[in-house]
């Protein structure tokens, strides 16, 4: 094992930063037409008239589509289990431009197709739409009074989970905490906007699209168009950021593909930045009522969570499922975790960075902090006291768990011992200082994948996998895994990915790519290695003829047992073939369900608050994580940074602002939607514990990508409370929330 655990630079790094990478909507296509989607300016109601004559008369306009002339599109019927390996994918049942109804702000009402983007955009501005608006009154957060049953929770979880006797145990507890926590609606806003390039050829469709799941997109597009999946190819060479978005096929892809067929031209349409706020999914707001019952010694008896999430009016789905992570976090024998949804006029929500864990551990880790003050107990001691030695949701032992070590190492790095537990007691240069901490966790998931490995006559290896590169470093770690499992120099390995003609893989979400695609690559490489060795040992002309395959290994492209050897190229040449290839598909195995696997972490935060204005600043963050073996410490560390930045955005500044008189988005541009910039990010000291997890999978890895964004939100608010005595239970922080600071 030489390449795995090396902090290698990304293979595509230099090309990305020098602008050489071709993203999906950069691909050069002959005779390409361009489109511009026009969005509604109401969130609910209907189109009463739509005038397109001025747009049509513009020079260079090829066609204008509205609900009056748009070809029939079908609702993707299988949206309900998006992470099912069968390839079901769809953000929403609702397909725009099929009737006059408007069911969310920025919904498409027209598509202009023209010879250039500029003409299409100008013509789009000339379309006059009249509406009949359906009035309503709205609230910032979903109201439990409007709650309805959820259609699914990731297709696999119970929406109303309980163990023991949660209510009775809460009532019987010596110390009781009851609080309400809310989280805000958030937008992904990757640097690369969504968009589709659709090319038809003899009834077959090729779609170039930045997507975190090419196979899901293929199925979704085929369903929307009512055509066989086999006739659709989706190509996604690189993705300029996804963050949980771009995984479920959104309506624009079907609309653009249908329009391209109609105008009989290849068509490219990229969404506007503003449309990314309303049309391609978001992290929906949550409202959670939380009860914790404990004994005076800190033993938690019962945790009860009732979450209401925002959902569209046309389907009852939610991905910000606050009720999943808290089920297995602590050792409380009694638990209720119920998730419902309240409908509002919005498009289908999608997962966004640590979906569910982000809000779920915000509420749980905030509540634990509150409990620690009620008990007069150190927040770390309280968490250790309630350490979950097994996963109480599944009653399974962990594959590995080093959470207590995360607390200890983190506390030491951070200097937790210097914390004076008294609220508002710490000062620095006239500013109030607060220390806060919180736990984090994220499950290690696995979904079956397939991969093909090919040894070529020139001594190089091609790894062909459908998976997509969303910027996390997938193609870099695949090379590292393949190099080690094949015994071939890493420079000889080429990874080919991002095309539905390649072996099928699951979406790049939920931090499971290393455990799913990575282990599949390892296995296919083992299989290719066995294949190559057998070709040598079964051929009389080989010096290795007759040797037992188990005694041989491949090292640096040569089969060897230490004394006898033959280069792979020689083996291949003798076989008289241009290449040897092997393909493999991994499956769920019963072994996987005998233990529970999760990554864990501890977050520590220092904040400074101006005692006069109440303006808060993050000063430093320490994160220590237990993620099993780290294939590439550099790309893994970068993912943790990304997770932390997302958590800081959620905690401190990002929020959709909507006009509550009509539910339209108000801050729908990058100037108004306050994603963190460099100045918002303090010093981040993020590190992994040095443990592998032999029980988890053959690579001994656990999840990484999502963990940085879990728990930190609470740690920040806990630090603010420690500095000011003001508890922020509704994210994000805003300067006015600390206005009542005691001077």
């Amino acid at each position, binding site marked *: 094992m030489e390449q795995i655990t090396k902090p290698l630079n990304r293979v595509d790094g230099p090309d990305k930063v020098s602008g050489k990478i071709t993203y999906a909507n950069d691909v050069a296509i002959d005779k390409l037409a361009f489109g511009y989607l026009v969005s509604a300016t109401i969130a609910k109601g209907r189109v009463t008239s739509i005038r397109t004559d001025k747009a049509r008369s513009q020079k260079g306009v090829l066609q204008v589509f509205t609900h009056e002339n748009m070809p029939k599109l079908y609702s993707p019927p299988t949206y309900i289990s998006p992470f099912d390996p069968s390839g079901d994918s769809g953000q929403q049942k609702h397909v725009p431009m099929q009737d006059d109804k408007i069911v969310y702000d920025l919904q498409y009402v027209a598509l202009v197709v023209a010879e250039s983007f500029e003409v299409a955009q100008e013509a789009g501005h000339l379309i006059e739409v009249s509406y009949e608006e359906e009035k309503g009154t709205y609230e910032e957060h979903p109201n439990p009074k409007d709650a309805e049953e959820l259609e699914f929770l990731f297709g696999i979880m119970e929406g109303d989970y309980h163990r023991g006797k949660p209510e009775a145990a809460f009532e019987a507890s010596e110390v009781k905490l009851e609080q309400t926590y809310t989280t805000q609606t958030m937008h992904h806003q990757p640097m690369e906007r969504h968009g589709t390039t659709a090319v038809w050829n003899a009834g077959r469709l090729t779609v170039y699209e930045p997507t975190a799941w090419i196979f899901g997109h293929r199925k979704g597009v085929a369903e929307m168009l009512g055509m066989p999946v086999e006739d659709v190819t989706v190509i996604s060479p690189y993705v300029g950021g996804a963050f949980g978005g771009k995984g479920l096929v959104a309506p624009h892809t079907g609309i653009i593909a249908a329009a391209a067929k109609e105008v009989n031209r290849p068509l490219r349409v990229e969404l506007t930045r503003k449309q990314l706020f309303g049309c391609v999914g978001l992290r929906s707001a949550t409202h959670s009522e939380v009860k914790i019952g404990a004994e005076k010694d800190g033993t938690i008896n019962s945790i009860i969570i009732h979450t209401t999430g925002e959902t569209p009016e046309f389907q009852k789905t939610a991905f910000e499922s606050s009720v999943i992570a808290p089920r297995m976090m602590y050792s409380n024998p009694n638990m209720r975790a119920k998730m419902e949804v309240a409908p509002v006029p919005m498009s289908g929500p999608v997962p966004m960075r640590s979906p569910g864990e982000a809000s779920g551990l915000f509420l749980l880790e905030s509540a634990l902090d509150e409990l620690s003050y009620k008990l007069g107990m150190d927040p770390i001691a309280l968490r250790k006291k309630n350490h979950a030695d097994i996963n109480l949701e599944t009653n399974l032992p962990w594959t590995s768990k080093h959470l207590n070590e995360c607390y200890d190492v983190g506390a030491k790095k951070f200097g937790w011992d210097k914390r004076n537990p008294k609220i508002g007691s710490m000062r620095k240069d006239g500013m109030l200082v607060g220390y806060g901490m919180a736990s984090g966790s994220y499950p290690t998931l696995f979904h079956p994948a397939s991969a093909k490995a090919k040894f070529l006559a020139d001594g190089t290896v091609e790894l062909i996998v459908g998976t997509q590169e969303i910027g996390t470093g997938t193609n870099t770690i695949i090379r590292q895994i393949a190099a080690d499992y094949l015994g071939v120099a890493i420079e000889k390995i080429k990874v080919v990915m991002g095309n539905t003609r390649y072996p099928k893989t699951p979406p790049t979400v939920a931090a499971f790519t290393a455990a799913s695609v990575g282990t599949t690559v390892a296995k296919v490489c083992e299989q290719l290695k066995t294949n190559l060795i057998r070709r040598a040992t079964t051929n009389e002309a080989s010096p290795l003829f007759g040797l037992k395959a188990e005694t041989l290994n491949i090292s640096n492209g040569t089969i060897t047992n230490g004394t006898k050897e033959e280069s792979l190229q020689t083996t291949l040449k003798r076989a008289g073939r241009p290449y040897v290839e092997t393909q493999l598909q991994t499956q769920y195995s019963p072994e996987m369900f005998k233990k529970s696997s999760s990554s864990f972490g501890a977050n520590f935060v220092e904040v400074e608050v101006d005692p006069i204005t109440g303006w808060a600043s993050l000063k430093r963050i320490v994160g220590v994580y237990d993620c099993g073996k780290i294939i590439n410490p550099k790309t893994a560390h970068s993912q943790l940074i990304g997770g932390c930045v997302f958590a800081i955005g959620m905690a401190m500044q990002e929020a959709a602002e909507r006009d509550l008189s009509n539910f339209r988005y108000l801050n729908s541009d990058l*100037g108004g939607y*306050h994603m963190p*910039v460099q100045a918002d990010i303090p010093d981040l000291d993020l590190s992994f514990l040095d443990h592998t997890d032999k029980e988890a999978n053959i690579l001994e890895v656990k999840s990484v990508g999502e963990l940085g964004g879990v728990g930190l939100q609470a740690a920040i608010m806990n630090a603010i409370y420690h500095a000011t005595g003001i508890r922020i239970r509704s994210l994000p922080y805003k300067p006015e929330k600390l206005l009542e600071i005691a001077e």
Partner: protein
Amino acid sequence: MNFFQYTEAKTARDAIKAKQEKEASYFIAGGSNLVDMMKEGIQHPQQLVDINTISGLRDIKNTGDTVYLGTLASNTAAAESEKIINFAPLVSQSLVKGATQQIRNMATIGGNLMQESRCPFFYDVSAACGRRTAGDVCPTVTAKDGIRTNALFGLNESCNTPHPSDMAVGMLALRSKVVLQSKKDTRKLALDKFYHIPVKENTKITHLQDDEMIVGVEIPLEHGFNHSAYLKVRDRKSYAFALISGAAALNIQTGTILNAGLASGWVGTIPWRFEEAENFLQGKAATESNFRQAAKIAISDAQPKKNNAFKVKLLEKILVRTLLMAKETPYGTNN
């Protein structure tokens, strides 16, 4: 397509003449605001008169009595100028809190003063907006509870969105004057006389005439300010407009305030100066208790609604902190 004429001007007079010859003509300098509005379909110019080609409008000078900034000096050039940093640091302190480095590199002094509303209703052409269309009334003006961002001062029946500039707030505290040139002559207007509260009849908020052009800003040195600070509290630590900003300039001699300049951003429909608070501070000791009293005076005639009520208290606190910061920041110690 929306075609327009592009004219390069060689002198200010040429520029004014060209602008008057065609309907919907606009001067263009950095373009960091106007080009955005053209893309969004908010402005449909028939002519852009490029004033970048006029020489002599980029200078930054110290005349002894004043510091003078040419209208075409970039925000970056102004913020980094030794003359500004040494003699009117509040201009630099406020400028660097505005926009981003990239925008400041392009944006000019005159453009900054003339920048348009940043309100979402202004940018949403489907919404009513008194600053886009004369006679329109913004829905937030009539909404019972208002909105979080709206102004506390200078309210009117057309538009209550706050003025976005940071630089203008700093300049206002320093009692700067705008230098205006017409075809015939030049005149100077104090910055607080240059802006006016929005009116329903038209979309303008300045007294700039159709036949006039801003050629520079003059910062008088006669007030003897020797301490200053700019505090911008906002939802993101960079590239965000203020929630509220405070600008303070003080002439402190042996602990006594001889002269004070106090202004605030994002609380007025135009950059807002607190003259009564300034007068109160004159002759007083530079102490926190006097700063607190001055801040109380400043907020006394604020007109909040429910959704922006918090801004009154926040403004008061920000003004106290800004004055304390100014006291701790003598000229020559910042930047």
